[in-house]
């Protein structure tokens, strides 16, 4: 990306009248193809046996990690939120990480305000959808007049401003990374850009994590958690833990027998 262009929207590859194909579109499709192709490749030969392929192991670690995070934040069963939050996380993560592929003039699509605004708008609509699915329309509308109806305008402003903040935060972070690398390339092209790239990788991962966690927090705070559901969830977690401990102790006993 050139120094003067503050977003990949301005890098136009192909134009026909009002139809323009810019870098944001192209690289969004690249990221989508990478994600779809990799998951197709991994899920083609899944196994439940003791031997699993490395790629399946990687995918299981990722999915299990996201599930655990969601379960800890919402204190509910994570399955309902996993597809949406997981997709957000993986898309932002991959689009930020593809920066390091050599020999490929890549600008993260998340460095464009249009991509991040689209993601933030998805979150904006996901909040009422999940909330209505959980509590019904009345339960959702009641959120706006709690604790008093006086707070209604502030709640509405909060809804809008946090969507804006979500979009601008991701855009600013990723754009600042590419911009600083571009400036350093012009000033000191030897080693410093590499260091800034490393820092960019770190912020890329953290930003993906933060985007997903914030989306989850917004969704969870809008849907009132029922007490029974929390109890049920805690019971499940406890049972899982006990089962795990038992398995471990059984394993130890088995080892002792052998010894």
């Amino acid at each position, binding site marked *: 990306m050139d120094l*003067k262009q*503050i977003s990949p929207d301005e890098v136009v590859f192909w134009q026909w009248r009002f139809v323009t194909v810019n870098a944001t579109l192209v690289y969004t499709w690249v990221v989508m193809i990478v994600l779809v192709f990799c998951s197709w490749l991994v899920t083609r030969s899944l196994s439940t046996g003791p031997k699993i392929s490395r790629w399946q192991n990687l995918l299981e670690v990722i999915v299990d990690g996201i599930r655990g995070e969601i379960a*800890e934040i919402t204190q509910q069963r994570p399955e309902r939120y996993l597809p949406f939050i997981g997709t957000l996380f993986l898309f932002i993560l991959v689009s930020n990480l593809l920066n390091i592929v050599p020999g490929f003039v890549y600008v993260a699509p998340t460095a464009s305000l249009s991509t991040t605004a689209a993601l933030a708008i998805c979150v904006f609509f996901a909040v009422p959808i999940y909330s209505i699915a959980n509590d019904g329309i009345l339960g959702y509308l009641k959120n706006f007049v709690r604790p008093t109806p006086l707070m209604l305008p502030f709640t509405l402003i909060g809804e809008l401003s946090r969507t804006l903040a979500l979009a*601008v935060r991701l*855009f600013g972070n990723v754009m600042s990374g590419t911009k600083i690398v571009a400036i350093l390339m012009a000033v000191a092209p030897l080693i410093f850009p590499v260091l800034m790239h490393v820092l960019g990788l770190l912020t890329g991962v953290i930003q993906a994590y933060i985007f997903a*966690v914030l989306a989850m927090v917004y969704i969870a705070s809008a849907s009132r958690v029922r007490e029974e559901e929390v109890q049920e969830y805690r019971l499940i977690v406890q049972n899982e833990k006990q089962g795990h401990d038992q398995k471990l102790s059984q394993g130890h006993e088995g080892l002792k027998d052998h010894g």
Partner: protein
Amino acid sequence: MDNLGLIGMISIFTAGLTIGLGAIGPALGEGRAVASALSALAQQPDESNTITRTLFVGLAMIESTAIYCFVVSMILIFANPFWDYFTQQTGGGG
């Protein structure tokens, strides 16, 4: 000094001032947040997961003010609307 020079000078000056002032506040805030998170971690190492997650989310919130300042200064330098308007009026002299 003509209009174009004045606009360029003021935008660059303001961009520097924006990012400078915009870095001071968030830096102080993040320092305080990290300091209290570290003491919380020292007192309750078992809760490290929750504390770290809350710390990251809080840091992102604080950092967003600095990011807004950065975006504003980038717009002032690279995509200044007044500059574009005056360069068009004077026939692309910039």
